[in-house]
């Protein structure tokens, strides 16, 4: 403490005031090292020239972005036209991630509601059950899913034996399988924030709405959903963002037809065939999309705050 500081007069915040920068230093170093540095590195790499066996040549180039957006023919000498391949992959990924988010919301909201309205002891048991799959590595979980639903897997065998179906469902390598994988991977990220919001929800509000001539569905739409909205949005972001960059589920369950951004980026950094600047550029574009979505969310939050 500084020698001139008045004794005893300061509140605790006063005592810490002068030291704030020093006390904050560890977190700033952490954020800088683990968060900003990788992003800056990625940004820099995306503007470098590729080396053919992976890695980069330190020479400025827009080639990676050019490759992403423009088609200049096989030898790069034709007049540029829009390259739809990667935009298509991005679009499909956004669509897949959006659908996965929607499905997670559809199942996650009632689940969270159910848990939050149990008595306190059983609540923690239910929460524990929801998080149990997370004790197992994501890769193993996804592979197990593949084994479960493949044509010779237990699901199909059971259904065949019972006689519900005549031949295997052919679930593997479809969009449905990818959705299932994403849903299974990220459902708890939807359930937990909504649970937290519903648990804080004051059920007297529902009674007040009913008292003021509002039926159950109207109460859900006009009172409950708006009040727990922050939890819903948090859940949607937590599911959407990792779904967008997911590569395990599309790789293992989807096959070539359902190629997604995550797999595209992953390939660029794998082995000797990769193209690091292109992978970095694709990541930067993905990051930009995610940031834009978050920004729209933040804007909306502020608007409701002021209104």
């Amino acid at each position: 403490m500084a020698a001139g500081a008045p004794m005893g007069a300061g509140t605790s915040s006063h005592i810490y005031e002068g030291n704030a920068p020093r006390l904050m230093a560890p977190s700033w170093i952490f954020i800088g090292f683990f968060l900003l540095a990788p992003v800056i590195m990625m940004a820099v790499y995306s503007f470098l020239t590729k080396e053919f066996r992976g890695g980069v040549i330190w020479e400025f180039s827009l080639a990676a972005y050019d490759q992403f957006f423009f088609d200049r023919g096989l030898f790069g000498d034709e007049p540029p036209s829009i390259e739809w391949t990667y935009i298509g992959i991005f679009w499909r990924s956004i669509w897949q991630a959006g659908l996965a988010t929607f499905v997670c919301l559809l199942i996650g909201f009632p689940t969270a509601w159910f848990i939050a309205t149990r008595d306190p002891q059983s609540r923690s048991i239910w929460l524990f059950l929801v998080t149990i799959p997370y004790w197992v590595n994501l890769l193993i979980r996804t592979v197990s899913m593949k084994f479960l639903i493949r044509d010779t897997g237990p699901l199909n065998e059971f259904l065949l034996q019972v006689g519900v179906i005549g031949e295997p469902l052919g679930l593997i390598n479809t969009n449905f399988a990818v959705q299932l994988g994403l849903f299974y991977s990220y459902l708890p990220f939807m359930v937990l924030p909504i649970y937290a919001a519903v648990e804080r929800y004051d059920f007297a509000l529902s009674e007040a709405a009913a008292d003021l001539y509002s039926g159950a569905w109207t109460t859900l739409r006009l009172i409950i959903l708006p009040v727990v909205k922050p939890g819903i949005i948090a859940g949607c972001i937590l599911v959407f963002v990792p779904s967008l960059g997911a590569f395990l589920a599309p790789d293992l369950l989807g096959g070539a037809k359902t190629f997604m951004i995550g797999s595209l980026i992953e390939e660029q950094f794998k082995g000797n065939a990769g193209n690091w600047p292109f992978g970095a550029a694709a990541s930067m574009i993905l990051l930009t999309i995610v940031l834009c979505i978050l920004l729209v969310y933040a804007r909306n939050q502020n608007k409701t705050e002021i209104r």
Partner: protein
Amino acid sequence: MASQDIAVSVDQVVKHYGNFTALHGVSLDIRESEFFTLLGPSGCGKTTLLRAIAGFESVSEGHILLKGEDLTGLPPHQRPVNTVFQQYALFPHMTVLENVMFGLLRKGWSKVEAVRRGQDVLDLVQLAEFAKRKPTQLSGGQQQRVALARALAPRPEVLLLDEPLSALDLKLRQSVRSELKALQRETGIAFIFVTHDQEEALTMSDRIAVMSNGRVQQIGSPKEIYEAPVNRFVADFVGETNLLDVEIASIDGGTASVVLPGGTPFTCPAATVLDPGRGHLSARPERIRITAPGDAHLDAVVTGHTYLGTDIQLQVRLSDGEVMSVRLQNSETTSVPEVGQTIGLQLEEGAARLLAD
């Protein structure tokens, strides 16, 4: 009284929670345009009764009628009854005006009319300038008035209020009391007001129902409840009283002759038909006069004083060891007996009552 003058009729209502019975056959009639209070200690079933009227609780037995129509089985949103909740339960994501308009819009009012009515009601509770604020940006007293406005806006047949003042501090509570009473007169809507504060009940109500353990003990005007309690519970719960163990010599109609602890005979009104034997005489501390010892109803020794501002309270002990309290108005001419002094106590005729247990 003609039945159309009754707003709510509670008929032999029983409410069980598992094997606990919260209401044991409660019957009440609440008249139109009446400020009716349910008064009783914590846990006596006031909230349960109110929630049964609003439709949040089903009743196990009995009926609740609104203007003669049975409400049994009708869900809360179909009952033309509105509630002011204890913790207000204002919708946090809506402005004050939107809160007040909520019930109107659900009832199918047009937006334009709902806005107009909403503003009128906010005017009524003097909150017009806060229409665009969110509930969290208001003080406790203001939130309380928004809750009131929201419940009044749809012009309910009956307004239910569950301890609406308990979240306010004392000073505010006193000013809101008179506002609430004025509002009730102005709107002409029957209010059913729940409280466990007897002062609140006495100052605001047209009639009071005193409850205890899921039963109605007495229904009457504040004056009747205070001055003619029917039993020990009511006398003790509403205001302060001295309960003297007396011997009943004879009872004739509503009048009883009793023998006071010191042996002095005394004639007083009796609450209900009692058997001769022993009974309890209730004497309010402010209805006892101090005289010279010897020829008074009772002789007592002063054991202490309590200064109450407007009054001075004396603690006295009778010769048989029973303790009583006596109130003297605090004025310059009041002579306060010293501790240890022997004084005479004169009970006001008609103000002391013989009570059932």
